[in-house]
């Protein structure tokens, strides 16, 4: 029996100009799980996400999203696949010229033939789910960062997507809102069997929501698999990440004190 994965990334190579940003990335996301892509800043997490949803064209390899090679799909194929996908952007990316209600209604109006009254009810339910019904007629610039993110999640969930991508969902949020968002993601997985791919480096969030993780180093996969297994790995970068151990990556050269032949008190010469 062959297992099909909602997302199957095979030997993905991404470049900015001549610079290789992602090198031979393999990643498989199991259906109905929360898969966290983690890694330090500049490791290529967001770039990977952009390639996965077809916003960037890979320099090599392939991305099978819901069974379709996303880079080779023509416009109608791509639009059909993306209608089954939800995406939460880091800063929300709500359309500023539309109210929250209109933002959430947009994919329903464009991608379904539902009557206006049903669309209105769905929008109300989705906004209520993220506790934003009261702000339905407000425009995005009138909202706080957390509200924008929750509204964007409501929009991403509007069509009940089979797979939901979240780029740094808890970045810039206060701890309580971040936990609420994590709880919502868990609920979406448990109640609707939704597959969720989250890019984050928030350890607390990873521990709470992740079933599987893929950890990126400098553009390559350091570790991949169930969170519990990855946490046990004896790979220095993985250990440093989960145990929050500083690795002096900045500078790293000889200090001025040592160049002067000195040392700190208590430090061996």
């Amino acid at each position: 029996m062959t297992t099909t994965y909602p997302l199957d990334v095979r030997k993905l190579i991404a470049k900015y100009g001549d610079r290789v940003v992602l090198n031979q990335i393999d990643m498989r996301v199991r259906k109905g799980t929360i898969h966290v892509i983690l890694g330090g800043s500049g490791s290529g997490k967001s770039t990977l996400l952009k390639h996965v949803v077809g916003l960037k064209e890979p320099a090599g390899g392939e991305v099978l999203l819901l069974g379709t090679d996303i880079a080779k799909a023509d416009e109608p194929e791509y639009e059909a696949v993306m209608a089954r996908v939800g995406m939460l952007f880091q800063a929300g990316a709500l359309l500023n010229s539309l109210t929250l209600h209109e933002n959430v209604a947009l994919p329903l109006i464009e991608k379904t033939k539902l009557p206006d009254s049903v669309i209105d009810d769905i929008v109300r339910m989705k906004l209520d789910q993220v506790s934003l019904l009261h702000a339905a007629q407000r425009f995005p610039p009138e909202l706080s960062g957390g509200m924008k993110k929750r509204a964007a999640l409501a929009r991403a969930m509007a069509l009940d997507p089979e797979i939901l991508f979240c780029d740094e969902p808890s970045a810039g949020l206060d701890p309580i809102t971040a936990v609420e968002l994590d709880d919502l993601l868990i609920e979406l997985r448990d109640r609707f069997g939704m597959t969720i791919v989250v890019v984050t480096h928030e350890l607390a969030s990873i521990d709470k929501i992740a079933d599987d993780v893929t950890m990126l180093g400098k553009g390559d996969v350091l570790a991949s698999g169930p969170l519990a297994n990855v946490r046990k790995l004896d790979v220095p970068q993985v250990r440093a990440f989960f145990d929050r151990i500083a690795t002096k990556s900045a500078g790293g050269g000889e200090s001025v004190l040592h160049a002067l032949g000195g040392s700190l008190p208590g430090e061996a010469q």
Partner: protein
Amino acid sequence: MSAERHVMQGNLTRDRAAEVAAELADLRLTGGELTLDFREVRAIDTAGVAIIAAFVRRARENGTKLAVAGASENVARTLELFPLPNPAVIENLHVDGLLEQFADTLVKVREVGLAYLLLCADIVWFTVQAIITRTVRARDVALQMNYMGSQALGVVGLMSFLIGGVMALQGAAQLRQFGASIFIADLVGVSLTRELGPLITAIMVAGRSGSAVAAEIGTMVITEEIDALRTMGLNPTRFLIVPKTMSITVTQPLLTMFANVIAIFGGFLVAVFYLDIGPAAFFNRLREAVFLKDIITGLVKSVVFANIIVSIGALCGLRTGGGADAVGRSTTSSVVAGIFTVIVADAAFSLLFYFD
């Protein structure tokens, strides 16, 4: 080899940077051993460390071995905090030569030209598709017509009135000398309907609406709204640009007609009050001078100019990359490229319609 010692005189801070640098510059490096004594140093900041680091480099080049003494824990920790500046770590930015810059420009022109052709093809395709399938975004089209048309009436009207008046004044000065003042109606009527009406309106709209299109779409690129549309399976060209194209295709000829009428009215006022030409005589002459062909070619041109303005604005917006300053650059490019292309198209029309 003699071991020398130098006691640093006072704090190593930004406000004493010049004195510290001078103090160290005066030290003679003999290639032996030199101990820097920090017992008098109570405070040190980044500027102080940088001066010490420069001294370390000089000493190493000279083969002098350095040692440190008398440093308080605070001073020692600050010296420990910073690595010696390492020039090799900094990426060397490559500056292209003239030939490379020229070649890059050619490649970019080709790339932009191709992107423009593809965008125009998309706009035509999605516009035809929307009309055939009756999926025109009527609300968006109406909103854009209001912005690109109704709200532009004031500025286009004022500008046209002044241009009509100025043209009549300038023409009158010449025509009067030959007793041919009545031909002011020919001058104003023909030049405005054929040429200046569509052109001036297009230039005004390029500055007003073309820049707005570039700024709106450019900002949407920066805030990932365009990406969001794509991930919702909504094509940004169909969703954003086609309604603008449809609305400007309707409003531009109307604006041009409005500009023609107001400009001729400006010329008429000059003719009546400055040249003492009777209103009836002016309008009779105007009717004889201006043909329907002139008006229609002017309106055809205005439709083409309108589509050039929107498509260039959209292209500049979609190609926005970077931060807020990039939106400013896109907006400027849209106005410059829009006006330039409109004038080139106008020259082509002149050859097509009036060159026998």
